[in-house]
């Protein structure tokens, strides 16, 4: 704790209230330099690194109280394992308390809900209902474009792996028009009597061709994406950033983002929280996947 106090004394431009909040958090969870230590030498105040939720794995462990205040793994023979008291403290610091405008009352309901002593709710790495949103850049016909890859963890006969579940690629979105019967582009209902000879007209105007597909048809960006990659028209450039969406807890959704900034409220933190009832969950997923009509 000596180092933490020393660092606080050196900060002069930070607002007092903020400082007090940090002090409370750090006092509640004493990240001393005794834990998580090993590879190097002491290079000054390291308390911020200890406080930071450094990996998504650590987010899971803190959320479930599966590691102690010093970052050491705790197992089910320990009193601290899944301790509701510790979990309440941990989950409190797992929210982005600086930039995301999270509703305080909602946050409290959420914490109360998941740490309920009679029916606690834990996060499970292999429990499904969570996925990654990866923002990338690809070269498409010589022009750099943003692509969003939705990745999910797939269980295998041995182990597991991340797979691409969906893609959202803006150039494809621009390519496919929203369907409307109002613009008079359709095959009349007696076309079959003419052996569909009028098909030639619809394929002449390539830009409108999707207007002649069924109501249910939705362009599958992932298949198109793979086709363009295989044809050599699309090539990977880089990753921009990553975030995660969690639907694993019944009636709740939260988003997990990485915050790389000064202070103690850093690393992988909850950046969005919503209470979802019934069908809202599927609607929310559609919204994230850009699948809303």
């Amino acid at each position, binding site marked *: 704790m000596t180092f933490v106090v020393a660092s606080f004394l050196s900060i002069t431009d930070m607002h007092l209230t903020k400082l007090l909040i940090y002090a409370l958090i750090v006092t509640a969870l004493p990240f001393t330099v005794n834990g998580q230590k090993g590879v190097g030498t002491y*290079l000054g105040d*390291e308390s911020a690194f200890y406080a930071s939720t*450094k990996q998504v794995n650590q987010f899971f462990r803190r959320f479930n109280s599966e590691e102690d205040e010093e970052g050491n*793994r705790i197992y089910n023979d320990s009193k601290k394992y899944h301790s509701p008291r510790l979990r309440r403290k941990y989950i409190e610091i797992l929210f982005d308390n600086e930039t995301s405008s999270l509703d305080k009352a909602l946050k409290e309901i959420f914490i109360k809900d998941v740490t309920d002593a009679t029916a606690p709710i834990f996060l499970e790495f292999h429990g499904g209902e969570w996925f990654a949103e990866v923002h990338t850049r690809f070269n498409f016909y010589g022009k750099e474009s943003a692509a969003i890859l939705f990745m999910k963890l797939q269980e295998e006969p041995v182990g597991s792996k991340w797979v691409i579940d969906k893609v959202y690629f803006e150039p494809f979105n621009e390519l496919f028009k929203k369907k409307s019967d109002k613009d008079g582009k359709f095959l009349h209902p007696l076309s079959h009597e003419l052996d569909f000879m009028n098909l030639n007209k619809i394929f002449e105007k390539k830009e409108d061709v999707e207007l002649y597909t069924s109501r249910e048809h939705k362009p599958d960006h992932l298949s198109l994406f793979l086709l363009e990659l295989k044809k050599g028209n699309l090539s990977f450039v880089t990753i921009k950033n990553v975030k995660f969406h969690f639907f694993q807890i019944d009636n709740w959704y939260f988003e997990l983002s990485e915050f790389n900034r*000064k202070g103690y409220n850093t690393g992988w933190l909850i950046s969005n929280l919503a209470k979802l009832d019934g069908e809202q969950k599927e609607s929310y997923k559609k919204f994230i996947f850009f699948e809303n009509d």
Partner: protein
Amino acid sequence: MSKYKFLFIAIFALSISGQLLAQDEVSPERKQAIDSLALEKVKDLGKYISIIGNKDTPFSEANRVINRAMELFAEGAQMGVSSLNREEVKYYGAREYFERLMALNYDRVTIKWFNIQYISDLERQPDGRYVGVITIYQRFQGESDDGLKYMDTTKKDITIYVERKQTQIGGRVIGFWDVLLGDIRVTETTS
């Protein structure tokens, strides 16, 4: 690395081999043994990076150390680097990364590691190997004779692969588990 150290790691790897053979799941004791082995490799990497980056290291010695450092890695390992000013990840092969470090245009370079580490759980891959991630923090300081100084702190998320291997000792084939380093994500931090 001295012969003794290599021997120590080999014996250490062998000592955990029997425990791991018995079952697929990694018990807390086995996990600790694997973590220690992985940290040895990470410490070696840290040491090599400091030597490669040091301007007092002769060219031939730096090249020799690069070769030793490469032995720590699984084939095809890459460094994915981003900075505070550039969010995009820039990719380098491990050897390319070391060579760039060696060629940095500073008169004095100091690379130190913070006394902190974070080790993830081990997860099983479809090929049967286990994978984990060790997070460490590094401080880099470069200084030119004309007084120009550059300093940064980076977070390094290092992939570790825990792999079953075999060796022959006295004519007997003995299985053991070894740790190899994989891709490393390097992120500049604000600290």
